[in-house]
């Protein structure tokens, strides 16, 4: 079972037996066909990447250039003035810090709670396992709007609005999607190890902590990344709960930037670039886990 996970990861990077491809007999390819393939892939990729190019190019343009019709990707003159304006007008570092704090705490909460619940759903044979699994999946389908108002009132009553508590606390009770993903992964951890430890008299928690968790490292890393990105990019909750602009996250910081009579597109795009960079960096470093995680987690 553990072997399977490795195998799966391998199969992503080096398709030895790529399914969905023509059989080996027809592997002799004409060069036109190969070029055609590249074109298809490039067009597809370009469609998704182009908006970023537009964002970058606008960030470096002078105002007059930004409002030139027809638009062009290459700035007539490169300028850093837009970036300077961003730092002048919004407390970027403050927002960045706020966002990091919230994301880190969310991740901490998730790490504490989600694996525990996933363990209960996979490695403990008990009567409630099935029903609980159904409940976890059902909560994934609940529209946030249903709970939004009562939750707001609850936090209001607890005097926790305008703090990060409403944003961070739920993670400490488990995130349904990640619970589900971790559970799927744990199902593939061989039970023999656990049985042996149980016979030896180890407590269930010890088994969880010392045997199962280490095995789940790849899935945990993926879960961490997912939780981090969700907390990082969350828009609705900071919108509702954070009132002081000093507490804003990056998501809301940009939103406020847009107000006013005039939208300054240059600085707005520059701010967008700055707000994207951290997520981008994270992604570049942990790309394998992102992609591996979604594939593994969503294939029931």
């Amino acid at each position, binding site marked *: 079972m553990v072997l399977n996970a490795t195998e799966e990861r391998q199969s992503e990077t080096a398709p030895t037996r790529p399914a969905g491809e023509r059989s080996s007999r027809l592997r002799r390819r004409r060069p036109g066909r190969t070029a055609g393939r590249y074109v298809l892939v490039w067009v597809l990729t370009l469609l998704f990447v182009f908006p970023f190019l537009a964002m970058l190019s606008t960030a470096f343009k002078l105002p007059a250039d930004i409002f030139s019709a027809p638009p062009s990707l290459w700035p007539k003159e490169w300028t850093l003035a837009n970036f300077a304006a961003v730092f002048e007008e919004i407390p970027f570092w403050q927002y960045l810090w706020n966002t990091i704090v919230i994301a880190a705490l969310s991740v901490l909460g998730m*790490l504490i709670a989600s694996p525990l619940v996933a363990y209960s759903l996979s490695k403990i044979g008990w009567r409630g396992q099935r029903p609980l699994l159904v409940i976890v999946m059902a909560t994934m389908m609940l529209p946030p709007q249903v709970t939004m108002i009562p939750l707001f009132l609850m936090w209001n009553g607890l005097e926790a609005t*305008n703090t990060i508590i409403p944003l961070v606390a739920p993670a400490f009770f488990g995130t349904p999607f990640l619970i589900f993903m971790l559970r799927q992964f744990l199902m593939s951890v061989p039970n023999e190890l656990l049985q042996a430890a149980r016979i030896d008299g180890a407590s269930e928690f010890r088994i969880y902590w010392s045997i199962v968790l280490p095995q789940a490292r790849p899935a945990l890393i993926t879960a961490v990344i997912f939780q981090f990105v969700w907390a990082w990019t969350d828009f609705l909750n900071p919108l509702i709960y954070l009132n002081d602009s000093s*507490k804003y996250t990056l998501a809301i910081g940009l939103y406020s930037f847009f107000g006013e009579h005039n*939208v300054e597109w240059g600085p707005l795009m520059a701010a967008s670039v700055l707000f994207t960079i951290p997520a981008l960096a994270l992604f570049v470093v942990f790309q394998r886990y992102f992609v591996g995680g979604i594939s593994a987690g969503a294939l029931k």
Partner: protein
Amino acid sequence: MESRMFRRRTALRAVALTSVAVAAVALTGCSGAGDSGPTKITFSYLWGGEEAKALEKVIADFNASQKEIKVVGVSSPDMQKQLTSMSSSNGSFDISDNFGNAVGSWASKGILAPLDDYLKTEKVDMGAFAPASLDQMKYEGKTYALPIAVHTQQLMYNKDLLDKAGVQPPTTMDELAAAIKKLTVTDASGAITQIGLGNPSTSTLFTTLGYAFGGTWDGKDGKTPTPADPKNVEALDWYTKTLTDAYGADKISSFTSGLGQYMSAQDPFYTGKEAMVIDGEWQAVNIPKVAPNLNWGVVDIPAVSSDLAGSTQVSTSTLFIPNNSKHKAEAAKFLAYMVGDKPMTDFTLALGNLPSKTSLLSDSAYDAIPHFDAWLNALKSPNAKSLSSQPYSAQYSTDLGTAFDDVVRGVATPEKAMQSVADKAKSC
């Protein structure tokens, strides 16, 4: 081995994150527990950019002028956040601003602190304010806000374009309609290249026109929504006849969507795409800054009949104190300062808004602003009207906005559109 190392790593990570958590809670949790020194109050305002800078200067002057109170200004342009902040017992500001027509709605819900007692203590003379600016400040006899700046509407026109077309600045609605016809230019395919009357804000334009035709939006008592008042419908009919039906709603819509951004260098009035426009006094300060070469003038909004001369719509920017503020007395002191002669002059000059005090309306400080007197005088007119500030106002203006949009797009006739708003208002 791996499991031990992993355990140590997770443990270290947990420690690191926990300390971050503790630090975060520490930083966000405590905010200046009562120390000896000036009382800190927070002034959260909707303004931003240049206007915010001007406001910060006034705040700095206040802080320098006395030692008991320190005002911290925060730019927070989101009105929804204002509301959510005032809904809990630990609100995030002690004094804030909004538009006059929100006062009634908020006061009726107990959101705003009544100011009458504080005004007495701070010796604020209510008689010093221009009567037109006070319409929206009271609810059920109590004062809940003070006007810090006032806005009126007038008809602005591009002198060059009018001269070219041989048109005189209009003084009656018929003249205006004729001028619009002469000043709207279409090309061979029927697409509009220049429009006689621009439309920066449909809601403002239509409500102002309603008043200009002698209509009323809140009934004679100012407490009932009356969108379907026949004079209102007449005003909208005039607009559709002159523009929407004459040139085609879709053509107008195409034209509008291609226009540059309001108040920027590409603003359609500044660039000659709009020959005339009904707009507010802030333009007088913006145009010299952004479009100094524009040759422009201002006249009163044309009247349908002589008793409606000088008709205009007045709106106010107000200061209020939320009921959940813990420093109401200090906030009131600052409020009184802000409506003092010099701070109000400083502030309104910088923002290009009208002062709300009668004595300042003829102050020479405003002489340097071109054409400002046209808007200043509008405030004195007996036909200066404002939308009521009632509990239904928020929903009402949204519904009106939707209906006006339908009229401009030619989707509904003015009569039907206004009737639908009336129906909605009844069921509210």
